[in-house]
């Protein structure tokens, strides 16, 4: 197996009195899909927000391509080629779809926007995600349905060629067809050598798409398995805490 592109070790994070991550390790490999699962409130989103530079970790080491890096701001993460779809989407409701998709990476010519090119690319990317109900790429995000918004957020993340793509419950609000497209997309990204980290509560999806699965339980990484060598029931056991890291069933 290749060297991991991302390697977290001993990551700790607390919010005031609440200690959320208690020394977590995680690896992600180029060309592989790494799933991160766990109960509600286990700390999954907190873990990836740290990777995204949104909420820096309190302690712990992050290695990227084997080098130790600091991720203090989202810009730090972007410079490393990390793209993220956040669970809360993080879209600007007052802007339209194209503006949101290209936010921070607008196409310009002579310093001014090349709206045509951006519209074109937005439209192409959205269609590849099976979006059929969006009437116009110039619709404001505030007028989109929950699933449409999620699609925009995903489209935004895959617009730019990234080295790592992190998806926090990307299909939660999606319909059947859209979910399938996103899973295809995830696989395609990995095949192109991108390291994908996906958070999901849907184990069927996880097993369909992931190479590895990591289970977070109350802020601790209790299992790190190859999907080929484990079962859905096992994983559920780890998630709910009935199975413990030693392998004994509680």
């Amino acid at each position: 197996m290749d060297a991991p592109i991302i390697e977290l070790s001993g990551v700790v994070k607390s919010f005031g009195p609440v200690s959320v991550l208690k020394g977590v390790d995680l690896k992600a490999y180029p060309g592989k899909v790494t799933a991160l699962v766990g109960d509600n409130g286990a700390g999954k989103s907190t873990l990836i927000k740290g990777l995204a530079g949104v909420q820096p970790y309190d302690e712990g080491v992050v290695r990227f391509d084997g080098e130790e890096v600091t991720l203090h701001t989202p810009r730090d993460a972007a410079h490393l080629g990390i793209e993220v779809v956040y669970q809360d989407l993080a879209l600007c409701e007052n802007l339209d779809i194209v503006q949101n998709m290209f936010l921070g990476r607008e196409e310009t010519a002579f310093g001014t926007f090349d709206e045509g090119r951006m519209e074109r690319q937005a439209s192409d990317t959205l269609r590849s995600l099976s979006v059929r109900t969006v009437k116009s790429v110039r619709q404001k995000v505030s007028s989109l349905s929950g699933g449409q918004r999620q699609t925009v957020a995903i489209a935004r993340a895959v617009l730019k060629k990234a080295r790592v793509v992190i998806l926090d419950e990307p299909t939660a609000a999606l319909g059947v067809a859209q979910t399938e497209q996103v899973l295809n997309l995830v696989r395609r990204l990995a095949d192109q050598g991108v390291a994908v980290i996906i958070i999901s509560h849907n184990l069927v999806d996880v097993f369909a798409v992931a190479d590895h699965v990591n289970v977070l339980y109350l802020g601790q990484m209790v299992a790190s398995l190859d999907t080929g060598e484990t079962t859905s029931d096992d994983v559920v056991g780890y998630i709910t805490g009935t199975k413990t890291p030693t392998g004994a069933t509680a």
Partner: protein
Amino acid sequence: MTTQGTVPTSEAAPDPGVGDLIGSGQEGGVGDQVRAWWQRVRSGEMGALPAVGGFIVLSVMFSILSPFFLTERNFANLMTQAATLVMLGMALVFVILLGEIDLSAGVTAGVTMCIFIVLVNVQGFNWIVALAIAFATGIAIGTFIGFFVARVGIPSFVVTLGLFLGLQGLELMIIGSGGLYRVQIPEILAIQNSNMPPWAGWAMLVVILAVSAGTSFWDRARRARAGVPNRTIALVWIKLGVIAALGGTVVFILNQDRGQSIRAVQGVPIVVPIVLVILWIGTFVLDRTRYGRYIYAIGGNAEAARRAGIKVVLIRWTAFIVCSSLAVVAGLFSISKVGSVDAAAGRDLVLSGVAAAVVGGVSLFGGRGRLLHAAIGALVIAVITNGLGLLNLPAGVNYAVTGGVLILAATVDAVSRHRAGGAVLRT
């Protein structure tokens, strides 16, 4: 910062021909476009429309109440009277779009003008050098505010209120108690008191038409190159026609002799093209550059903007600098009109400036509004003073009427928006 190509999508979707694109609202003929616009308006996206309506209603009212209202002279008066507020309103838009406020913008205008004129009158500076120092001071003030708001994180209301007081102190120290300095620089006085020769007014209109046509066709060419649909070309002609007709009327009226003495007074006041150029540049920046886009993004959702890698602190910071710099221009307009500066210069301006923006449809919560809206809002407020100035009312009544009309103008706005958007929050 440029994209290095998108994820190939051809595997998942058929080769995307133009016909397959998701719409962009540019499709259809004139009829479709007008219908779409009307439906947007009906669903609440009214922009400055209600303010324009308010302006028209007030104009009709005043022209009934005073025979002097609808004269060429009064029309020219209105332009110069509104200029200061228009500038200040536009200055404030940059920070209001971020959901911030600058209560010190008025005294920034005042204090920089105190410095400017004292340097010229007392220290004997060359006026251009002095003006440069005034602008530098404006920029310094904006930098100061921006530092505390964007970097330290103090609410802008408090920082700028502190500065509102502090700069008044500075004015007093510069000008001295009871002090007063006359503006004697012909170039500065000319801004509000002289007019362009009639031919220059027409030339200005031609330039406007050319720039407008130029950008329209450039945009169309770029869109065509990208393979996305363009609005029907008829709309471009209609737009140019409207500009020509409206602008032609304005220039024509202002080119009439409005003097009441033997010497002819005619032409477009010099302040008008200055305002138009700033309006155009500002709008260009807000609509077509990253800087402008990021201002809207931060105003809409600062955290989302930050996550998109936008330098939120930098943009916030510089927006205050832009605001303060444009406030200096407003100060120039003001002293050109008033002819002097004193230790209280600019004290009472700022609330009207904010009101101009709000009446024009700029949201104080950030993320929504345009420079043009503030300009139109300022015209609405200026026309109140202009019209009432023709009516000879005692101060008490004048105050009350000004306040009442302001509320009325805002009501036109609110009611039309709500009627259209559906009274969502009125339970």
